[in-house]
């Protein structure tokens, strides 16, 4: 589904991704861990198409399409969804109107008619339950005045509504208390299926107790320096990142 080869990216002349490789197959969950500043958010931003980052080398193939050639909206409509580490507030744009527009733009892209209002509302209700989103939040402006946890839940709610092929969660666990963490994780688990893949970016192993990954990768200095199964996350939790850093320095 997703094949990243030798990806290099920089911002303002600063090299951040330095030849990153990653293969994600349909239905797989990949966790990406790594110390602060390793380039995790940069990877997610490059995949979602944020213009600030310049890709200097490498390729990203998404279901046979050259992802890097697509505009951010086309990537989304092809099935990429990024749950932001820091979801922003957009006053004056209502949550409901925003989602209706997003869904209908995707349908238009797929050559489908706009969704019936009643179907849309039914879908809203169902997906809201998934993350126990308070009903009152949907009539408000997008994320405006939402607590940190509510914003993160709203990201997962949007993902549920948009039904992507690939969900990228950028530190969705940060700023969540244990109950919210469980809720959000359960929401994500319910969205897991044979076709849908996830890249779960996290700094801590905690989240991976709930969303159990198929693979765990360590990102350091803009490259994947170690890969393993779920047990690698446990090891990192116990030993921290220093031993990885030392390994990398020793090999270079």
């Amino acid at each position, binding site marked *: 589904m997703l094949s990243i080869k030798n990806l290099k990216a920089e911002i303002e002349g600063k090299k951040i991704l330095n030849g990153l490789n990653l293969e994600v197959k349909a239905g797989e969950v990949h966790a990406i861990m790594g110390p602060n500043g390793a380039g995790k958010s940069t990877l997610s931003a490059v995949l979602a198409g944020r213009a600030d980052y310049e890709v200097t080398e490498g390729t990203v193939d998404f279901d046979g399409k050259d992802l890097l050639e697509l505009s951010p909206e086309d990537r989304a409509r092809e099935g990429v969804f990024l749950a932001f580490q820091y979801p922003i507030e957009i006053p004056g744009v209502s949550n409901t109107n925003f989602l209706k*527009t997003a869904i209908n733009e995707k349908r238009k892209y797929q050559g489908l008619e706009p969704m019936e209002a009643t179907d849309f509302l039914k879908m809203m209700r169902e997906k809201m339950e998934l993350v126990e989103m308070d009903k009152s939040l949907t009539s408000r402006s997008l994320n405006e005045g939402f607590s940190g946890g509510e914003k993160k839940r709203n990201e997962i709610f949007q993902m549920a509504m948009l039904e992507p092929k690939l969900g990228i969660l950028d530190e969705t666990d940060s700023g969540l208390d244990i109950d919210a963490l469980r809720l959000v994780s359960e929401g994500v688990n319910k969205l897991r299926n044979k076709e849908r893949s996830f890249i779960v970016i996290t700094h801590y192993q905690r989240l991976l107790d709930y969303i159990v990954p198929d693979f765990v990768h360590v990102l350091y200095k803009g490259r994947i320096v170690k890969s393993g199964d779920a047990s690698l996350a446990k090891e990192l939790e116990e030993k921290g990142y220093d031993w990885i850093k030392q390994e990398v320095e020793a090999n270079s």
Partner: protein
Amino acid sequence: MLVENIKAEFNLYKNQAEKSDFFLKREEAFAEFEKVGFPTTKNEEWKYTNLKNITNQSFQSTCESTIETELMLSHAFLKELTANKLVFVNGSFRPELSTIIETDESIVISTLAKAKTAHSELFNKHFGKYAPIEGQGLNAMNTALLSDGAFIYVPNNKTVTNPVIIVNIADSTDVNVLCQPRNLIIVEKSASLTLVETFYAVGNNPSFTNVVNEVYANENAHIEHYKIQNQEGESYHNNFTQIFQEANTNINHVTLTLSGTLVRNNLHFFMNGQNCNSLLYGLYMPHGTELVDNHTRVDHAFPNCHSDELYKGIMMDKSVAVFNGKIMVHLDAQKTNAYQRNQNILLSNEATVNTKPQLEIFADDVKCTHGATIGQLDEEPMFYLRSRGIPADVARKMLLNAFADDIAERIKIPELVELLEQEIEKKI
């Protein structure tokens, strides 16, 4: 040259007029006009707004209109709204196009020309008492040669059930036309009124609309006042609105400038008692080389009053906007709360905004804030919306609508809010 047109027109009028008090007032105004003339960019208040494209041309007052006017009326804004409508074409009242649905006979929804005799006491008490002419060439010109306008009188404790819409059309099909509407609005104690002024232009010749509004709000009165300026073609517009507030009055004023070659709004509030609430909101979205200039002034002359002002601009092409908001807090006006903001989004690199707050505070126990912003549409929200599959042009519209929403939510007529949304859709 406009100045010659004005002189000739006044001489013509002078020879026919009977020598009433009204005539004397106009003669006095004409003398003032001759003395001060039109403002130039040397005047600090007119630094960014050059009237030479108006003053170098000829304009004439006329009561003629063409079929274009009827066409315009057939698709004018708020046509479907249940309202009292006063239609003025080139400044002349058109009874056959107007409708008054108010049934309370103590409420007067009429014209200035009629009120001068039918309500002479009220007329003489209020006319020319609020809008100054000294040093104000354009106000003096309006007073000297005003065509006609609305006269609205709401007695104590009365509410005008439906809005009153004053429709102004400048029809320049045949000539360069000068329209000088003059409205006098009197809302007595504990009375309330919703007033909408709309401005249109038809015809291929230039038009110049020079409006003076005097609004008197007696104690406890409540006025909702909306102004919609949508004059297309080569149309120039100057508007002076003086709102005089007695104690405990509540005034909400929204100015929507959708179109006009040059639009200058002078909106002045004077609070003549305690516990007044003055709300001034505006939205402008000029395109091409249009210029929109909003000069506002709020005089806090008594303690415990509140004013809130927010003007927002969406700037396209090579358009120019001027904002100057003056807040005067007089010596006795303790416990004043006065807020002012001007926010602009530039959708083009060639658009210009000149913004200037002017706070003059002579009392010491006051809360006043002001702020101005000029910038592009933020990248972050754009990316957020696009990352959810919303194309850039749709996302942009959503964000501009959101930007305008702060003003739209001040409008209490749902049909007008809807109309604004459509206009934004159309303009951007």
